[in-house]
């Protein structure tokens, strides 16, 4: 009797170990090659963190519904060491060897440009949130989608705001780095400035990774330029602002394409970051409702609690990419790449990032909100409906700034 009981118990135990876990279908894998080391790693890491965060949250809420089954999402992330050639090889590996289902993107336009050739070649849709340059979307590729707003429109709302400032800036300096994204920004900004009736007094392309802006700043000072628009990378803009201070160059306003929304940029500059304008297509506002996170404000809070830093639009864009796939797979009812690709192209839903809908060329279209650093806080000042808050304008000369206490990191 005892022996029969024992063997029955043994069989039950054995069976429970072998029994499949609750998820009834195989995981859907999303693959990406991201800059985790190398010069672009400080932004690349936002993408990895956000991808993981979004995948975890979606799985917590039950995963993705494919037909009648619930599937979980899983991630496979490689470190491309900020090397474009390696990232192309890694995407090929993800598709042909690891056999991931869909692709998420890297950071930076030149990476997205090269890597989208892989997704097009293997006909696996890639939704990337790191590249905004027009070149990516002008090759008539069908499998690349982007959640960053077009580069050419980055300064759009800023220029509109400038025409409404009192006293209106008389002349503008347009400075831009020589990489794909920033050249696209400059190409799009010039006609906007012309249409707004602003004179471009200085229009200069500078070397990416430049550390010396003294010559440009000296020219800005000697020409008495009122407004400076800079399209560049965080390290360049950091150097620009520091050197502007040391040369006592303070135009009435300056605006930068990157840096301003990021916490570590503000920490590095401390009080010197004050008055700088920037733009973002995303703010952690509770008005942006999301079916997985509640709303953008809750997303930002939970993100900061988990990773220790505030998310900016890069992280939100990355989370949006994951959500785009989740929604598209549910809409398509299958994980067939072609059908999911078509579903992505037709998406139109509200998320923590705003409305996710792609234009025929694959790029999202979101308006930029003008933001300004006021006392180490990022404040939205101008949106599609006009002024949200009064900007601090004009910028006082450096030696007249009120020392609001340097913010030590």
């Amino acid at each position: 009797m005892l022996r029969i009981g024992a063997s029955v118990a043994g069989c039950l135990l054995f069976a429970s170990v072998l029994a499949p876990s609750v998820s009834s279908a195989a995981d859907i894998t999303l693959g990406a090659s991201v800059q985790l080391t190398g010069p672009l790693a400080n932004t690349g890491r936002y993408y990895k963190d956000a991808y993981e965060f979004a995948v975890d949250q979606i799985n917590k809420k039950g995963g993705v519904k494919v037909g009648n089954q619930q599937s979980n999402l899983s991630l496979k992330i490689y470190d491309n060491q900020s090397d474009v050639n390696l990232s192309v090889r890694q995407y090929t590996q993800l598709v042909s060897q690891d056999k991931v289902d869909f692709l998420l993107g890297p950071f930076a336009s030149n990476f997205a440009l090269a890597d989208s050739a892989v997704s097009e070649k293997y006909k696996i849709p890639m939704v990337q949130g790191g590249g905004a340059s027009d070149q990516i979307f002008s090759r008539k590729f069908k499998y690349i989608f982007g959640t960053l707003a077009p580069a050419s429109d980055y300064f759009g709302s800023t220029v509109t705001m400038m025409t409404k400032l009192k006293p209106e800036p008389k002349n503008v300096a347009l400075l831009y780095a020589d990489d794909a994204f920033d050249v696209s920004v400059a190409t799009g900004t010039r006609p906007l400035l012309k249409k707004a009736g602003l004179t471009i007094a200085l229009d200069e392309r500078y070397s990416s990774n430049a550390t010396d802006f003294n010559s440009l700043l000296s020219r800005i000072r000697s020409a008495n330029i009122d407004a400076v628009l800079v399209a560049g990378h965080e390290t360049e803009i950091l150097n620009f602002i520091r050197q502007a201070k040391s040369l006592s160059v303070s135009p009435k306003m300056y605006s930068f394409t990157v840096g301003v929304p990021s916490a570590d940029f503000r920490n590095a500059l401390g009080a010197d970051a004050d008055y700088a304008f920037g733009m973002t297509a995303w703010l952690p506002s509770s008005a942006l409702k999301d079916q997985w996170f509640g709303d953008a404000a809750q997303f930002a809070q939970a993100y900061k609690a988990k990773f220790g830093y505030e998310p900016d639009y890069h992280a939100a864009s990355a989370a949006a990419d994951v959500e785009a796939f989740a929604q598209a797979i549910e809409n398509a009812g299958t994980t067939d790449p072609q059908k999911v690709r078509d579903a992505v192209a037709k998406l139109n839903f509200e998320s923590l990032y705003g409305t996710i809908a792609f234009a025929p060329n694959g790029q999202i279209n979101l308006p930029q909100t003008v933001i300004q650093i006021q006392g180490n806080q990022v404040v939205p000042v101008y949106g599609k409906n006009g002024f949200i808050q009064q900007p601090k304008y004009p910028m006082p000369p450096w030696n007249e700034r009120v020392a609001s206490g340097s913010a030590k990191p």
Partner: protein
Amino acid sequence: MTKPRLAIVATALVVLLLAAIPWFGSDVVVQFGISTLLLAVLAQSWNIIGGYCGYPSFGNSTFYGLGSYGVAIAMAQWNLPFAVGMCLGAALAVIFAFLLGLPVLRLKGHYFAIATLALALAMTAIVSNVGIAGQNIGLVLPPLNNDFLFYELSLGLLVIATLVVFWLTKSRFGFGLIAIRENEEAAAVMGVNTTLYKVLAFALSGLFTALAGGIHAYWITFLDPDSAFDIGLNVKMIIMAVFGGPGSVLGPVLGAFVLSAISEVLASEITTVAGLFFGVVVVAAVVLMPRGLADLSRRFKSEGWRYFANNIKNYRL
């Protein structure tokens, strides 16, 4: 069969085996293969100027970039076929080798190395201002989805480069180069036209490097000054040649294969410390086996594990 005959047959078999890989290997293996074969070509071309001639060039990436841009400009800007692009790239490299090789090859030892490094840095900066090359944004080439073709092209180029190096070991030109490496003044006294030979070696080295660059550009379909004139690539090809054994026929090829394999395995398995390991491998190799794998395999039989200690003893302060 006599020993040399055996060696030839064995090598031919290996080549055939390599050529057959695209048929039964996965996509990733083929991609890895293309990358490794091109690196082997680079190491082998460096071998000509650095290994045989004794002039360690730190600027071969200049030729690589010129080859890449030759193909890219021809195909993306002028819509010419790939072959024409390759010829353009090769021509640019050879002209550059003659024009700038002449003054730079007058320098000795590490000054030559620094001068070639400076050339590479200068080219990157200059090309990022050239309009037809797409300035710093670079160029996008028409895509061709045929890894098979690229693989066989790379293999073919490697075979030709190796045959050329083999020919060097048997020809008067090659002996002249070795004489220059061992003692340039004596070589000149003996009647070797050192200037001509050096420049020819530089140009030959540049030619193969440029062709490899051209294939790479078409394969990746995208290039910009930083990736085309990549200084890191420079150092990689030197390390592979030195690791394998400079001044030998198959050493650089072996070095390239081994180091690529290590690097790729690291990059796909332990991605975060891949680069770190590479640096450690380099440091260890320079300390323990500065004369490369070829020397190691030759002397290990007689010296055993003391080979490493001997190296340290010979070169330490």
